[in-house]
């Protein structure tokens, strides 16, 4: 493609769209997000002793990245895995 990027506004539109849609698609309705949270807590709880009330689960959105971030304080490691 020999067209200079400066003149190619369609490429700019395409890039913007891709970023917008990653963000849009990662936004879950509140009930679904609760399910994700419960599943994460249950799975981690199989291996570590955790305090459910202290868990922080958020979706971080920056201009070009989206990430699911979970902060799970660990009280102890379980000997037997459930």
């Amino acid at each position, binding site marked *: 493609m020999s067209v200079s990027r400066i003149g*190619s*506004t*369609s490429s700019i*539109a*395409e890039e913007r*769209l*891709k970023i*917008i*849609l990653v963000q*849009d698609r990662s936004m879950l309705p509140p009930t679904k997000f609760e399910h994700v949270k419960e599943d994460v807590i249950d799975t981690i709880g199989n291996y570590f002793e955790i305090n459910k009330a202290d868990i922080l689960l958020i979706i971080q959105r920056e201009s070009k990245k989206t990430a699911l971030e979970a902060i799970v304080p660990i009280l102890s490691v379980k000997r037997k895995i459930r």
Partner: protein
Amino acid sequence: MGRTIVVTAGKGGVGKTTITANLGASLSKLGNKVVVVDMDIGLRNLDVVMGLENRVVYNIMDISDGKCKINQALVRDKHSPGLFLLPASQIHTKDDINIDKIVDIISTIESSFDYVLLDSPAGIEKGFESAAAPAKEALIIVTPDVSSVRDADRVIGILENRGILAIALIVNRYDYGLVRRKKMLNTDSIVDILGLDLIGMIPEDKMIIESNNRGELLANYANGSIANKAFENISRRIEGEDIPFLNFKPQGKGFFGLFRREE
């Protein structure tokens, strides 16, 4: 048993009504019995696009309220004998819609027609829900711009969650010149981003404005126009034929936006 297809977009003003009406005409020209249903309750427009505004007696809400039978509300098209319009009400709002009743009405109509095309209103609220509820398939209309594609993406997600998996894409108001000069999103990018099968591209065509002014459909009024050729091809693809996409490259001096198909 007919096919019930919702024509929707999320975004307003992208051409849902114009496309529903013209596709209805093209499908009926192929020998099908078609009903186009205006689901924009309170803001009816399908009648106007088809030039049938003086022939509307009953509408879908009258059927729903038990004031008339389905047959009494159907308006036969002026030109195409196999094409019928089920108008929307102009006095109700979306809040008045009883979705279960709408589903029943469409289900009854389905059994006597080959195609039921549901013209969805813009948005993702009750109007859209009531248009999508009776549908088994969907046509998503986008124009080549960021807003339209973004909105379409959300609508596709909603439709898939409701179990409508037969979803195809129409790109409307395509401008070959702008796309070639990389000033307009091209169809491949849109198809890639949305992850849908493309069923057609409809070029910007001034005949659409003129036929709309007159309340005529391209299949009858401007049957040689490039947009009508696109509608014909889309109808044939809907019927299962494998038709190559039109090449919108202008022949010779493309003036007044008249594009001819490259032979």
